[in-house]
């Protein structure tokens, strides 16, 4: 038995030598390799909120019509045909009949029929499934199949957003493959590991924790997609994902962080692409005492103190430090991608001196330890931050420093995401650094900030913001039949909210994708950047470089 320490070393050197430079790579079909730090869960759209699954299913399945790039959700203007090639409104606007493209086929060859739409509506509203779209479909009484190619939606009432809810919320599922499975076991159905859709791509393989691959369906009724292959390449964390992009093993990543952007500049083969964002990040104050629903919060129960704490924050500086100067400070509970956005909404400006003065006036007197006190209690609170968000953790550290300067002590409570949600639900927090993904429908703000929402169980208005002025403005906006008047009402609601400072709006998450220069994305939508993946193209040389080509070629 002779073991030399050199033997493994030589083997390793050999393997290292196997690295190809891609020069002799076989001509591959065009491929988009997207790297991301999360695996998928299930591939039935109604059953999942998993971001990876949502992306994959968006190219496997279709909706009846898709929202246009203007993100208009009022009426049907701007909507593009998808699975439905046309639609007709009933005379009283209480029905819409969608005509399904006769060329549309499930990838197993069976034509798509109205019965599939009926089934999909039932799944999305089934209590046993609890689909995300469920509540939005409450205005729809029923869906019927007039004939095999026409699905008719029956509404309870006319609303500005009724078309959007019917056409763009439901992904149509193959009833012929699923209808015999009970709703409660749909989630464990084998279909989830081998989905069959009607969309531009068909499912090829899923290696858990590693790869999800879909291939172009050349028989797709909307025309063959331009990229031959889409691959989601799963990494353990964002850092590993970035290294894959930089090493050329992937050619797309949906989010770049600040330091990543600095790196992109050093890689001539890569580019950064900005796209509008629907994510707004803010610090929510709990207006009531922590944990209980009774009694105001010693600090945040006071509107003036909330405003003072807002003034203490140099939001511009915090945002610039963590991101870059191009990142927008949030003006309120909206982002610039939304139709109702207004960059001139009145703001509570950075003014630490006025903040200190207000605190002084409200009885918070500076103590020897550098912390203000009132009636013996210190001006001290904790802020919840999810342990998964690097950016928010960076930012709270900066905020902690700014708070210290006006005599407020902010403790950082770093928790994992589910714990954060659980704390929120139990109202068990002082302040919480949340991110909110906005719905393209502006009326969504009612779910977030209304008095009714604060009183509801399982609300997202966990900080008990209650203002009749705000409620009235939103109600008027929703009730309005005139789009312009509606927008004016919404803006009035935003201004009221900002002035009451139920939270501090920090930033719109900059959406900057990193990709190879040869990847040419179609317009990336703010709500779903991947909405038009089928229209993207990848240039010839853009196939990501393979890791093992040189030796592989020599082995033939």
């Amino acid at each position: 038995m002779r073991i030399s320490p050199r033997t493994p070393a030589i083997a390793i050197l050999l393997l290292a030598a196997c690295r190809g430079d891609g020069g002799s790579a076989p001509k591959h079909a065009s491929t988009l390799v997207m790297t991301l730090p999360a695996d998928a869960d299930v591939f039935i759209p109604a059953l999942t909120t998993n971001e990876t699954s949502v992306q994959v299913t968006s190219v496997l399945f279709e909706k009846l019509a898709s929202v246009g790039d203007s993100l208009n959700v009022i009426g049907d203007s701007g909507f593009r045909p998808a699975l439905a090639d046309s639609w007709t409104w009933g005379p009283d606007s209480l029905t819409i009949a969608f005509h399904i493209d006769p060329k549309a086929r499930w990838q197993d060859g069976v034509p798509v029929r109205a019965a599939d739409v009926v089934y999909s509506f039932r799944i999305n509203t089934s209590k046993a499934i609890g689909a995300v779209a469920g509540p939005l479909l409450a205005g729809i009484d029923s869906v019927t199949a007039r004939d095999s190619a026409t699905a008719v939606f029956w509404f309870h009432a006319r609303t500005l957003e009724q078309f959007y809810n019917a056409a763009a919320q439901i992904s149509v599922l193959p009833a012929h493959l699923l209808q015999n499975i009970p709703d409660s076991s749909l989630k464990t159905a084998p279909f989830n590991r081998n989905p069959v859709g009607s969309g531009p791509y068909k499912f090829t393989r899923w290696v858990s924790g590693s790869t999800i691959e879909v291939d172009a369906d050349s028989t797709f009724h909307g025309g063959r997609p331009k990229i031959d292959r889409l691959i989601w390449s799963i990494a353990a964390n964002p850092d590993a994902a970035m290294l894959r992009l930089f090493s050329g093993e992937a050619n797309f990543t949906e989010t770049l962080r600040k330091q990543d952007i600095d790196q992109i500049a050093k890689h001539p083969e890569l580019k950064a692409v900005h796209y509008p964002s629907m994510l707004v990040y803010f610090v929510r104050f709990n207006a009531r005492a922590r944990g209980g629903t009774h009694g105001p919060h010693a600090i945040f129960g006071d509107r003036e103190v909330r405003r003072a704490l807002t003034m203490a924050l140099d939001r511009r500086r915090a945002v610039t430090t963590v991101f870059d100067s191009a990142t927008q400070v949030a003006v309120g509970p909206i982002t610039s991608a939304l139709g109702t956005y207004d960059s001139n909404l009145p703001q509570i400006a950075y003014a630490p001196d006025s903040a200190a003065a207000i605190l002084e006036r409200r009885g918070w007197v500076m103590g020897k330890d550098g912390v203000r006190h009132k009636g013996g209690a210190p001006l001290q609170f904790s802020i919840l931050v999810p342990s998964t968000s690097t950016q928010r953790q960076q930012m709270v550290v900066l905020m902690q420093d700014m708070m210290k300067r006006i005599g407020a002590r902010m403790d950082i409570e770093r928790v994992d995401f589910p714990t954060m949600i659980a704390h929120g639900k139990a109202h068990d927090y002082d302040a919480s650094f949340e991110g909110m993904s906005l719905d393209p429908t502006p009326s969504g703000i009612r779910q977030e900030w209304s008095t009714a929402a604060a009183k509801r169980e399982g609300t997202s208005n966990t900080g008990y913001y209650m203002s009749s002025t705000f409620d009235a403005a939103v109600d008027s906006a929703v009730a309005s039949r005139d789009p312009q008047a509606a927008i004016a009402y919404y803006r009035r609601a935003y201004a009221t909210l900002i002035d009451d400072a139920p939270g501090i709006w920090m930033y719109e998450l900059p959406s900057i994708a990193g990709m190879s220069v040869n990847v040419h994305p179609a317009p990336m939508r703010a709500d779903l950047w991947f909405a038009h993946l089928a229209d993207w193209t990848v240039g010839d040389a853009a196939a990501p470089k393979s890791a093992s080509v040189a030796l592989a070629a020599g082995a033939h």
Partner: protein
Amino acid sequence: MLALRWLSAAALIAALCIALWRFARTRTTSGRSRGAFARYAAHPSAVIALIALIMLYVLAALAPWLATHDPIGILAQSFVNHPPSRELLFGTDFAGRDVFSRVLYGTRISLTIALLATVISVIVGTAYGATAGFVGGKLDAVMMRFVDAFLAIPRIVLLIAIGTLWSPLSMWSLILILGLTAWFGTSRLVRAEVLSLKERDMVAAARALGARDLAIVRRHVLPNVMTPVIVAATLGVAGVIINEAALSYLGIGIPDPTPSLGNIIREGTPYVGTAWWVALFPGIALVLTALAYNLAGDGLRDAMDPRQVDR
């Protein structure tokens, strides 16, 4: 001013080392345990390790006094991810915090946690092992099967599970958990020692004289098992330090913004390509601490157990 503080810290370290050396010299020439001192001193690596440990503990104890910056205070905007320089010895991290000061404080936290956790594990392990060994019989068999089971669980996996189910852990619960998952080896060691002692004359004599069990354990058994326990504990500290760092690295250890070595490495990981210094220096501090404990433990083992000198 700061230089003066560092000089006095160095002087303190030197003084401690000299005091130790003189103490050891008196013991190597006379006294009951002179063989042990001589054997320990015969290992240059163990001696260096001891000096390194003295240094680490002095630096850790004086961290607030020696730190060049506030470990959680943020420097100006231009000091984000700043490379090491004369003013910022280990550079700065993503938030513009001084890595040198953070590592100093982090070492202090890590050493404290490891030491306290090890004390817990020694107490629990000794009590458990002594009970099993002394009582013997069925109870012993059952107790040792439990130890077998716990030894079969990779400790970090168990810690991750506990950390997940009860997150976020406070520093004290972290110490408790690290201590309560580190005593299994010790208990085995103590049990074996107790079993062999039980057969010896002095214990039999004490029992014949009517001494109560507890008294026998206290007077005859414990003093004799302390030697292997101290060796195991010294080696164990290194393991606890690394496990604590691993938990902090996974984000279920010491909560932010308190710097522990694992936390600093975690925060440096995303930037390792561009700001390698953030992850590198706390790692070196970890390796040095663990290495010093391992070497010192090796030296102690050889010193205290003459049967096991370097063969």
